[in-house]
């Protein structure tokens, strides 16, 4: 421990300029977060400065190579690694968590309820950001190769993000795009795998300095991780979700039923340069008991032609369900998915069979609170603060993550609007963001009123309904999208 502290003191002295930079940017981050609407550039600068500090810290005792003075000195590998980890905790994570805390306090969030999120946010940052940067620095001999490697990794990450929203290739987009509710399962696995890889690299590098082996291990691990990330089936995540969230109500006993005969189907595709066919499905679900709300989380569909050809869809996106005002307990779900144009063209004149699994979430235990709207946030409940923007938009925000609740707003007694149907059912109190506040916008104007009722409902059960529709005739539904 004495050697650890001795090395730490040396690193503090060596990196005092970089430490000051992080602290100053942390202060600017607090100020801009509490005074500016979208200080993304400060977040970016703070992230870059923190990453730079970590890389410089690791490079203070470069690991690859055979010329460094320290390798022939009596350094204990565990003391050296301990000093680096302690430094990261004290001069990277602590300032960031203090900045987040100050932002929360300035914005009126209670400290007690924010504390788990504050801690979890740092755990995620250590595992998902600080340690991977440290591991990369531990495998590079200086800032130039470090920055070069970092840029390559960022390009891969940015490219993957773009592919989710790019129409091509469709299989990749389908592989990467997951239902929002359970995406946390894949992200958690990714963080655990990443943490295992980077901790192994740090251990191997500091104990044995086997850089070539570490680099091979890192490349292999990352490549396997990417493949696993892409091919992890999202229905499995719903099974995990169902296991983890103890159902407080038995969905199967509620008599909730789909009416396949009510299903409407349409397909549209660009007239020129066929890239994908957009498939819209709407289906009625009945038997929803009073006081409960139903949301569709995802739909997995398999279309099979009479010739045996099949097309498996990715996850369908669902908009808010429409309630049938004439029929109690009936809602219509609207989902959109993508189809391979070659399958569509091949089967457009044939009778196709659709086999589908619909993943549903039932919300209940609704609570409501009416607040007088102001342009400054008002504490509502469940960690939510709401306010009205200058343009009359209704905004609500919460600390570290949007709560895993169905949040709706009723303005002037109208039907409540859902803030977002993209609810993460993650049990963790924070997501990996530097900004500790997550804000969502309701599609309701508050220009004509001063009061709004916020209604929150808890997810009570997650369940699946399978159904089959025979004789789908694509050409009957096809419409050319302009």
């Amino acid at each position, binding site marked *: 421990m*004495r050697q650890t502290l001795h090395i730490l003191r040396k690193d503090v002295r060596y990196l005092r300029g970089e430490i000051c930079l992080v602290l100053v940017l942390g202060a600017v981050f607090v100020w801009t977060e509490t005074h500016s609407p979208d200080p993304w550039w400060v977040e970016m600068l703070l992230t870059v400065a923190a990453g730079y500090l970590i890389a410089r810290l690791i490079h203070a005792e*470069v690991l690859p190579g*055979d*010329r*460094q*003075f320290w390798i*022939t*000195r009596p350094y204990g590998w565990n003391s050296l690694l301990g000093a680096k980890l302690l430094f990261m905790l004290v001069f990277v994570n602590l300032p960031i968590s203090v900045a987040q805390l100050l932002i929360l306090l300035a914005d009126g969030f209670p400290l007690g309820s924010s504390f788990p999120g504050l801690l979890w946010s740092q755990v995620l940052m250590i595992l998902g950001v600080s340690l991977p940067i440290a591991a990369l620095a531990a495998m590079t001999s200086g800032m130039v190769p470090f920055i070069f490697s970092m840029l390559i990794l960022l390009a891969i990450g940015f490219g993957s993000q773009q592919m989710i929203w790019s129409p091509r290739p469709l299989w990749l987009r389908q592989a990467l795009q997951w239902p929002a509710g359970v995406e946390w399962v894949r992200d958690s696995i990714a963080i655990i795998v990443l943490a295992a890889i980077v901790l192994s690299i740090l251990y191997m590098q500091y104990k044995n300095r086997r850089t070539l082996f570490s680099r091979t291990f890192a490349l292999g691990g990352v490549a396997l991780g990417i493949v696993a990330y892409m091919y992890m089936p999202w229905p499995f995540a719903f099974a995990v979700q169902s296991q983890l969230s103890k159902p407080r109500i038995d969905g199967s006993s509620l008599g909730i039923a789909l009416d396949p005969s009510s299903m409407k189907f349409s397909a549209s595709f660009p007239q020129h340069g066929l890239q994908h066919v957009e498939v819209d499905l709407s289906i009625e679900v009945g038997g929803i008991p009073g006081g409960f709300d139903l949301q569709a989380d995802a739909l997995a569909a398999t279309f099979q032609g009479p010739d045996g050809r099949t097309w498996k869809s990715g996850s369908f996106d669902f908009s808010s369900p429409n309630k049938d005002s004439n029929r109690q307990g009936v809602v219509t779900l609207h989902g959109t998915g993508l189809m391979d144009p070659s399958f569509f063209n091949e089967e457009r004149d044939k009778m196709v069979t659709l086999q589908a699994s619909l993943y549903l979430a039932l919300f209940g235990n609704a609570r409501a609170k009416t607040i007088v709207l102001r342009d400054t946030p008002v504490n509502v409940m469940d960690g939510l603060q709401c306010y009205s923007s200058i343009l009359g938009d209704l905004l609500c925000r919460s600390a570290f993550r949007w709560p895993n609740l169905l949040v709706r707003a009723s303005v002037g007694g109208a039907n409540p609007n859902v803030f977002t149907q993209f609810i993460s059912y993650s049990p963790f109190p924070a997501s990996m963001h530097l900004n500790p506040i997550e804000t969502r916008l309701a599609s309701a104007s508050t220009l004509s009123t001063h009061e709004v009722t916020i209604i929150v409902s808890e997810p009570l059960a997650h369940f699946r309904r399978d159904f089959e529709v025979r004789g789908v005739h694509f050409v009957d539904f096809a419409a050319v999208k302009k």
Partner: protein
Amino acid sequence: MSSALCAQDLVKRFRNVPVLNGLNLDVPEASVFGLIGPNGAGKTTTIKILMNILKATSGRTEVLGADSRHLGPSDLKHIGYVSENQEMPEWMTVEYFLAYLKPFYPTWDEARAEELVRQFNLPRGRKLRHLSRGMWMKASLASALAYRPRLLVLDEPFSGLDPLVREDLIEGLLESAGETTILISSHDLADIESFASHIGYLDRGRLQFSEEMTSLSARFREVEVIVEPPATLPADRQWPATWLRPEATQALVRFVETRFDPEHSPGEIRRLFGKVQQISVNPMPLRAIFVTLARSTSRTA
């Protein structure tokens, strides 16, 4: 005498290019062992393997009785290493550098450190990056001598230094000789000759010989033989293998006897050359011995 350092059948290949070919080395305790050899002979590689900086392809090495593959902090507390190619923490001042290293070594002698700073005339407040090459090397050596290591390994410490700095460094080393075993690789043979007790000659990845300096100086002689002209060299099969670099001019034959024996060598010369008018035998400096060996081995290669 027990060994401070030893290597047995040491082999090192870099991408199938052999650098060390079954090297055997034994550095006695309390000796000043000069490891000499031409460029690319494998001196630095040998030292790096002994210091556990590089891994050997095969073979065994021991440093202060410990397997060098497992040299850890407890061993390194007693070993000093100074190399011309070391990357130092250049942002540190000389004073901070020494103060930083002090807690790593239980045997750190503050008075000795102070003495070395004074002796080497080191500027305490100057950063290492702003030191001249000579000062930089002195600071490096001071940081290795201040804890009175049992073993000091020096890789080309005099390379590119002016004579005054060399003298200062040697003076510093001589003060530690006796209590410290010193392994020094160098091209500066005149300097090594002045204080090395043992010499090892490394060539093409093998130790060609290793012996005490006094014995080496005694057995190498430059011999000049004046014969009746025309001087001719005996046939190859008669030419002793221990006589190197033969040259013949009109009445003069010159060669290097590598196993000179004052009792037997003159008789052997007379036997081979017949009518010999004069034999003169001259001692050789280490540099001349090195050149002779290097040229002979390159010719045989």
